[in-house]
């Protein structure tokens, strides 16, 4: 039985990426329905720290998407209640020794050329920025564009601001297609919903939704834990992490590695992220992941050693084999668009993704080159 008032677009997924797609599509004059089998922000969005980072990205398509998002987030936050706790706190990347500082300087220089603002902080000035940092660090770089939002609030407020019809607790069980394979809508347990466009913003389950539509998108989950401390006065002011660089002699490129990311929140607790494991959808606590997070955090901020962790939670980052998201039209199913696979950067990349999806829907010029994010790039790849 078809449900009444067919929208122009159905967005599958009420996380931050789905919310941003709904928001920009609605602003382009389209009517939007968002469906999710769970609640608002029930997947990766609700398990994230709300990182809006450019500092950790090397020059390339993901950094371009992040830079555009950084600008969009600033505008979005200004229009949301309490700004969804948006905070342009800046990121501070520190180096433990001179060799790492040299590598960090080279990395920052390449980012600067791509449009990132990065300011070198000499060793003796680190404690002006972060008074509780461990002694003996070689220096660091300040990234003023790095920011933070409270991700669940951001998604919920974006959804409300979009005016989209939101159907939570309704799992999509089929993607309806027409005679020539084009999308006609989705089937949920509550009934059929018709629309000429369906946006797959199902995050970690994006591969599953693609499969329902007869498309192929190899999205896989990658587990991460976040540790949350008791509420504290502001002992950590920026988003702080230590960078290590492993020089790859063959390619001459530097691959970034990081330790625990430590940051304060307006509400008081310090958040410590983020571990990574390929373990499927297993929520079982990994004591080893907690050990590494705690060790990394207390190494950077010795003052945290006596602080108690009140809770920890796991989330699943949706990643694609080349660690870039899929954004744009599916090559084989007319009317199907993808906006998923953002790995651990979905909060940060959501606005640019949503804007790009809206432009594709209205047939306008996308805000950046979408070719690197082409969902068709995995076609023919077998799992």
């Amino acid at each position, binding site marked *: 039985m078809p449900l009444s008032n067919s929208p122009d677009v159905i967005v599958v997924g*009420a996380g931050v990426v789905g919310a941003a797609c709904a928001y920009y599509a609605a602003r382009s004059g389209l009517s939007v329905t968002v469906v999710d089998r769970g*609640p*608002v*922000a*029930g997947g990766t969005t*609700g398990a994230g720290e709300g990182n809006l980072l450019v500092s950790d990205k090397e020059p390339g398509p993901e950094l371009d998407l992040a830079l555009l998002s950084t600008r969009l987030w600033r505008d979005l936050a200004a229009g949301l209640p309490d700004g969804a706790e948006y905070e342009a706190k800046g990121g501070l990347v520190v180096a433990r020794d001179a060799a790492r500082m040299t590598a960090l300087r080279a990395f920052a220089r390449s980012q600067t050329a791509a449009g990132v603002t990065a300011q070198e902080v000499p060793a003796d000035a680190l404690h002006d920025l972060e008074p509780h940092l461990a002694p003996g660090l070689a220096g660091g770089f300040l990234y003023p564009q790095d920011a933070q939002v409270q991700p*669940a*609030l951001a998604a*919920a*407020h974006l*959804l*409300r601001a979009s005016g989209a019809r*939101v*159907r*939570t*607790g*309704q799992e999509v069980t089929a993607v309806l297609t027409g005679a020539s394979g084009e999308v006609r809508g989705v089937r949920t347990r509550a009934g059929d919903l018709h629309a000429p466009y369906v946006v797959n913003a199902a995050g970690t389950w994006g591969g599953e939704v693609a499969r329902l539509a007869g498309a192929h998108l190899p999205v896989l989950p990658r587990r991460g834990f976040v*540790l*949350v*401390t*008791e*509420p504290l006065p502001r002992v950590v002011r920026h988003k702080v992490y230590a960078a*290590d660089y492993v020089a790859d002699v063959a390619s001459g490129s530097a691959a970034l*590695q*990081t330790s625990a*990311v430590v940051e304060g929140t307006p*509400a008081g*607790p310090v958040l*410590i*992220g*983020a*571990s*990574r*494991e390929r373990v499927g959808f*297993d929520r*079982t*606590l*990994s*004591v*080893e*992941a*907690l*050990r*590494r*997070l*705690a*060790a990394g*955090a*207390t190494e950077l901020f010795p003052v945290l*050693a*006596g*602080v*108690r*962790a*009140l*809770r*920890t*939670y*796991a989330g699943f980052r949706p990643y694609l084999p080349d660690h870039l998201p899929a954004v744009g039209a599916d090559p084989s199913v007319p009317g199907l668009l993808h906006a998923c696979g953002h790995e*651990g950067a979905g909060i940060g990349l959501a606005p640019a993704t949503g804007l790009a999806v809206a432009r594709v829907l209205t047939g306008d010029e996308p805000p950046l080159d979408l070719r690197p994010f082409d969902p068709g790039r995995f076609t023919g790849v077998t799992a």
Partner: protein
Amino acid sequence: MTGSPSEPYDLAVVGAGPAGLAGAVTAAELGLSTVLLDASGRPGGQYFRHPAPGLGATRPGALHHDWPAFTALRRRLAASDVTHLAHHHVWTVTRRAADDWTVHALTGPDGDDGKPVRIRARAVLLATGAHERHLPFPGWTLPGVVGAGGAQAMLKAGLVLPGRRVVVAGSGPLLLAVASSLTAAGAHVPEVVEAAGYLGYARHPRALATNPHKLVEAAVHGTALARHRVRLRPRSAVTAVHGTDRVEAVTVSRLGPDWRPLPGTGRRVPCDALAVGHGLVPQTELATGLGCATRRTPDGTDALLLDAWQETTVPGLWAAGETGGTGGWQLARVEGELAAVAVTARLRARPGLTTGRRVRDLARRRDRMRAFAEAMAAAHAPGAGWTGWLTDDTEVCRCEEVTAGRVREAVDDLGARDARTVKLLTRAGMGWCQGRMCGAAVAALAAAGRPDGAVPPSPARRPLAVPVPLAALAALPEDPDGPDGPEDH
């Protein structure tokens, strides 16, 4: 040494209440090397809480009709080879295989003496009990308002009364016991205010008839209360508390069948304290952290799903007592014993242990008492209308100071349909108590928004059962089988 990495204990029991004590002594008597970890300094759990020796109580059993049963368990513990680790706060349990477990604990009276401990065992029995369920109401944060179970615990542990004139309110069989203890200790209890109608029991005549000890218990309390002229007010609730610095009076209102307060029925009852509780919530976080399945009890809490031998859905992990659903100390003791027998049968490959007459008899008693517990739970299940007594400015989450109004906003305006989403949007349940105080209330308020998009409620996830210092986590031994190496974000 037993429990060292090379030689694990056969059984680690978490919690030294009636279930854990019975489980530990039975296992040891059957020949298992057993370790018993408990947060408290003395065994007994919540039910058999008793004053520290230093307080000089001459008759610690005066507040317990069942004191001899406890002293018998305590004697068996003293005579056994059980390693009793008091002041051990278990923060997580991890599993490598069905017979390879590690129990992680912090030590010290408050878990803060800085020496984290790991105990290895071939099987684990969780007997972590329950905590009190609180349904908020206007004024519940005023000094003088205490938990009903908390009032009894204060009395049992330190012989301290919460006030001189104490109204007892809420729902559940505990209220009568609390009123009885309070009057015995010298307080005046003007009223016991029970939200359910006791007629609810009549729907389960069989469960009542087959549990005569429960009727005796009720009769004992009933007689004591009648002697002290305590009035019983069924189908009523405290819907407001009055006073500036502390409780001076409460408003008691009549309730409709779904617990919605009936307008115009409020009566003011002077008192200087209010002891209020709405039953118990099983403490299941150690088990749910390991992926154990839960079931919804008739009074709307989540209890561990257990098989006929008290094993959870994760092989090698057993549970007994309130973790499987509230049922009282006698049921807990029987379940602890059954679990110990089942663990021994498994570890020693002695299936014959579980077929003896005594064990069959234990299982029958367990089933009978469990049926009674479920009937009681059904009779005292909170009606959906109770949120009707919450004003928008009633604080629901005390740790994070979140009001009912803000929770309703998250539900009505932002699409929250379950407690977890409300938590993400309002911080309700993110503070020190991790939702143990406000969880029931938040879930009920979230359910109000559910008709237009059902999201089934899920049990609370608390991977850290108690707060853990970062230094203690950082000092854990490295595990090469852990997460992937460090990488980009």
